[in-house]
């Protein structure tokens, strides 16, 4: 465990960039390093963090999951409806996870068993999930979510929001699964060379099905958490997140080709984007200039990270 963690902290070239940005923003904005801002930053990015971990797993496998963002939406809506109906947060959580898991399972079966292309398949399930979210909610936020959810969203331990802790717990579990189980090893190997994995007797299909399922499950958890952070279950909550999720994963250094990258990197990628957006806001930079700066920094950050890691080797 310790070893896995230390391994994941090493070879993380994004880290210096992240630290530099962090220090820079702290120096230039008096509001950046305040508990209020940090809390907001952590809370707002918990959903993205969980979903990005799912996307990381899929990327490592050499696939892509475009549906993950709408899985967030649809599971939030179903969870909200269940909570409104039963008044129980636990049932809501179960509902969110089972919705996510089932969408993921469908993805997995279509891709792993039938051999359909991940891009189009997940795009299709994305559309279907989005449609279902709208049909169920009629397009508006689900009414009657228990206040307990919002309290959960406000809860902090030593300044760290409970939702962030939940996200980190999920991250840790996935990290363990990926680095310390044969399943995780198989994911990496299949991503590295699918044929070779088949020739080595790895059950490629089952691993593919399971990875997409896990990705869906994580989308479900993210959907549930989104209710806590937003106070309501909203049908379109995840829809705008897709590019941010992909951006965070790739920024961390996990490639779409598969077999290369790690969850630790994705955490840093999410962190980098979060700090970047928050810092630019606090500096009072107009929205459109923020876009430009964001783009430049994403580019330079990745480039620098690549240089640094090249030097290390």
């Amino acid at each position, binding site marked *: 465990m310790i070893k896995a963690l230390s391994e994941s902290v090493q070879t993380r070239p994004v880290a210096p960039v992240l630290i530099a940005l962090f220090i820079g923003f702290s120096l230039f904005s008096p509001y950046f390093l305040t508990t209020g801002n940090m809390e907001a930053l952590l809370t707002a990015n918990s959903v993205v963090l969980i979903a990005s971990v799912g996307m990381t797993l899929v990327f490592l496998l050499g696939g892509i999951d475009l549906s993950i963002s709408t899985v967030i939406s649809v599971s939030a809506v179903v969870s909200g409806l269940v909570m409104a109906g039963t008044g129980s947060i636990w049932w809501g959580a179960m509902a969110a996870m089972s919705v996510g898991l089932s969408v993921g399972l469908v993805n997995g079966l279509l891709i792993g068993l039938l051999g359909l292309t991940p891009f189009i398949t997940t795009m299709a399930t994305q559309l279907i999930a989005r449609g279902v979210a709208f049909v169920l909610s009629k397009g508006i936020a689900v009414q009657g979510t228990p206040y307990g959810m919002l309290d959960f969203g406000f809860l902090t331990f030593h300044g760290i929001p409970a939702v962030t802790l939940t996200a980190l717990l999920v991250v840790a579990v996935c990290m*363990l699964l990926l680095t310390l189980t*044969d399943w995780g090893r198989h994911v990496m190997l299949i991503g*590295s060379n699918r044929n*070779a994995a088949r020739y080595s007797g*790895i059950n490629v299909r089952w691993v593919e099905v399971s990875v997409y399922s896990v990705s869906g499950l994580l989308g479900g958890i993210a959907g549930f958490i989104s209710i806590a952070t937003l106070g309501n279950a909203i049908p379109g909550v995840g829809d705008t997140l897709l590019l941010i999720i992909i951006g965070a994963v790739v920024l961390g250094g996990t490639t779409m080709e598969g077999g290369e990258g790690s969850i630790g990197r994705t955490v840093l990628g999410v962190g980098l984007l979060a700090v970047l957006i928050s810092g630019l806001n606090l500096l009072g930079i107009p929205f459109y200039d923020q876009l430009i700066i964001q783009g430049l920094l994403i580019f330079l950050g990745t480039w620098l990270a690549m240089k640094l890691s090249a030097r290390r080797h």
Partner: protein
Amino acid sequence: MLQDKAHPLLSVRNLTKSFSGKLVVAGISFDLYPGQVIGLVGENGAGKSTSKNMLCGLLEPTDGQILVNGQTVESNEGHAHGISAVHQELSLFGSLTVAENMCIGALPGSRLRVDWQQMQCIAREQLNFLGMDIDPDAAVFSLGAGQQQIVEIGKALLHADKVLILDEPTTSLTALEREKLFRILDKLKERGMAIIFISHFLEEIYRVCDSYIVLRDGHQVAGGALAGVSRRKLEALMVGRALEESADHGDVSDTGTEALRVEHLDSADCRDISFAVRHGEVVGIAGLMGAGRTEMAEALFGLRPSTGSVHVQGALLTERSVAAMKALDVCYLPEDRRNNGLFLNRPVRENLSAAAISRFIRRRLLKLGFAGERLATQTFSRAMGISIPHIDVKVDALSGGNQQKVLLGRWLASEPKVLILDEPTKGVDIGAKFDIHNRIGEIARAGAAIVVISSDLPELLQVSHRILVMRKGRIVGEFRRDQFDSVKIISLAASTGEEGLAT
């Protein structure tokens, strides 16, 4: 293309390369004259391919000079000076046709109008020149390994005008095609082409080369005219010690029980394959390039759709799949190591343990973590003689032969009962090859049944108790050890000789 034979075409001075501080090629120097063939020999990882890459401009030397016709060549432009190469890992494009692959370096026609007709002609001509019957319109991915190697050679020949470097060009070729290639090299030599020939087959070195250079750990330890240098001497120079003869496997006792029985196996490229292997027996399978040996092995291993029956240890396999085979301790070492074998961007450790990772799962604590994986893989890696700084380097950075050893290590480590090896020693150096042959013998003596598919007939003669010959997808003959005769085997495989010899 007549050149001045008195002046070197290519001069290399103190060529040096290090990868992040590790010296891989340490100051080699030589001259290459028109019409000369230099054999570059050395163990796996000695730095042969790295030298080749520097010569044809794929790698930038850390130090040293390359001169063509007395003029210094800037790095990265060797190709512009007429240096071309057959790469050890084929530099082909799977989804392009044979003709496109051959002509890609100089597409006929203009920039805006590729002349397909002409391309066809060129490719056909080249294939005829090589004496190969390959469809120029076939996509390269649909070809077998041997045919791909021919395409690669054809491609390099098309572009070579001064210097041709061949990096282990014959690893997938059988004796017949090898001889064809050598005759072509002879012709080129007469035309004044200078050739650098890299190979682990010393008989090939003696067949084609005039002089030699021996590399050991990147250092040029010897060189000069080949005439008068004995084979033993050359081996000793490469390995740094004298090699002993590998032990004769002798005959297998007839008492072994049947481990593998294949009956009437049919698939796309093979037909009506039936044979059996007993415990402790090594069966070799010979055949020409494209005879369908790989296909047969993959079909019986459940990697391709096929009909027919396969029995393992007497039990009929209802469902043929890799998982089912693995459960019965049947293993298959694929021929195409880059595409079907190795996880290139993963470390050696994971590559070695890939087929057996579940065995390392820690029993305590939620089954998290792999106990002893590092130690075990280190042991395998040492046993296989893989030279690497540490077990966590990516396989991609290994030399070709060492990659092959990693792959072989993965399967030998899984302690199989039935082992199917497809070109097991492809690219492996002589020292290691003897070790591998001995290992095969040991494993067989320990009771495993082994099928060896190889294009290297001496290897088959060395390790097998029995040899089956395949031609055009069918088994056409069988030889027991006391009937072994390379001429007969070759002629049967090529269908030039009498029909079905042995019984």
